[in-house]
């Protein structure tokens, strides 16, 4: 007996697609995983074999999100050297093109590494900001992109930027919901151990988090995990 395959376009089909998509993604709490869903779509839409998102921090640091396989060496080099197209802050819609990684002279170290990893050309697109931080997306190709119009990347860049915002918001809310449960439980542990009221326990948690310079939720999680609620001497 075989399971009948739903006809594409019908409701049964879209439900099956939705279920398949959901089950292919078990661990959802990670922003990087969410970002990888975006970079995979971009790879599929553009033919690029390496796609990654870069969030630029005000301090000059960077966060790489959703990088596809074999990009880690390149990402690490970006963080180690200032001179790479991925290290630059781009305005939304702005595009940098490295037509030949074998011969590029603007970012020789980065380009040569990309070349040695099998990527013949690269483009970096500025995306919309994420919580006030500039974001760019790198795309790497096995073939040279001579003659390709950079403008073709603008719409997909726009889509990726907005999608990253959504993923970020979802993950943020997911964390907030989790923190809420954890903080409530830590409160309860303190209430029972020290005979405190709920507001007193919260005040204690807040003070400890300030003293130990920990986020309230992290402190509460550590407390709930270890159940070590005795006050410090």
């Amino acid at each position, binding site marked *: 007996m075989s399971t009948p395959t739903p006809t594409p376009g019908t*409701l049964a089909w879209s*439900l099956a697609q*939705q*279920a398949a*998509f*959901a*089950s*292919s*993604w078990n661990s*959802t709490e990670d922003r990087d*995983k*969410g970002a990888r*869903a*975006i970079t995979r779509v971009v790879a599929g839409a553009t033919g690029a074999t390496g796609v990654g998102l870069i969030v630029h921090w005000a301090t000059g640091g960077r966060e790489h999100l959703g990088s596809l396989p074999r990009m880690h060496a390149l990402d690490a080099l970006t963080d180690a050297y200032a001179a790479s197209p991925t290290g630059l802050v781009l305005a939304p819609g702005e595009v940098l093109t490295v037509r030949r990684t074998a011969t590029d002279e603007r970012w020789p170290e980065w380009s040569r590494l990309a070349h040695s990893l099998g990527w013949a050309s690269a483009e970096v697109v500025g995306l919309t900001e994420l*919580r006030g931080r500039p974001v760019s997306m790198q795309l790497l190709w096995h073939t040279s992109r001579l003659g390709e119009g950079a403008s073709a990347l603008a719409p997909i860049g726009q889509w990726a930027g907005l*999608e990253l915002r*959504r*993923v970020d*918001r*979802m*993950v*943020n*809310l*997911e*964390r*907030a*919901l*989790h*923190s*809420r*449960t*954890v*903080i*409530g*439980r*830590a*409160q*309860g*542990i*303190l*209430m*029972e*151990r020290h005979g405190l009221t*709920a507001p007193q*326990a919260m005040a204690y948690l807040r003070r400890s988090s300030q003293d130990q310079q920990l*986020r*309230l*939720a992290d402190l509460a999680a550590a407390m*709930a995990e270890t*159940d070590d609620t005795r006050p410090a001497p």
Partner: protein
Amino acid sequence: MTPVGALLLSLLEEARSSADLPETLCRHAARDLSAHGVAIALVLDEDGLDLHVGSSPEAAELERLQLDLGEGPCLEAHRTGSVVVAPDLWAETERWPVYASSAAILGIRSVHAFPLQMGGIRLGVMDVYRREPGHLGEQDVVRAMTYADVAVLVVLHLHAMDGSGPEQLGALEEAFSAHPEIHQATGMVAVQADTDLRSALLLIRARAFVEGRPMLSVATDVISRTVRFP
């Protein structure tokens, strides 16, 4: 305008305030789908079950029942990320032994549960409760999925109002009936019974079940120190 946009706009016209949006959405959906009730629960995992809202007190009660019992189509939809349909609760007494019969006593015959998700991240579930058995029609299912999409936007909007901080959920707690007492009581019971938090939650759940009252009522008694475990 897209269906999601049109729906969002009509909710904004009807809602008295942002905090009123989730409940307005449930009422709107119940009317639109000719359902007895519609409710939304924000679910993270099987431990964080208290934020919910319904189109009526009865719908909210049906939702609370699932969260309290820890079983039902809502939790299954959340776990699997797929739409869960129970066309006849009378026939589901093996799948959800307590929930199916409790809901039936409250006059509910069928449930459709739609996960609230975006890009594979799940935030909860929207449940459609009906007094008659059977499946929703295709049009209604598409309509319900649109409501679920709008619900995600509404929840994100309410969270953004709090500055998207990891520890602030003020607007969401106002919009969904929030009861941190359950989490506080879980922490207290873990210490009292010298057990882990997961087991503590189960202890509270079991007592609520045996005494036939909501978990919140047991939790409140734990906090006021009129009930102790064991």
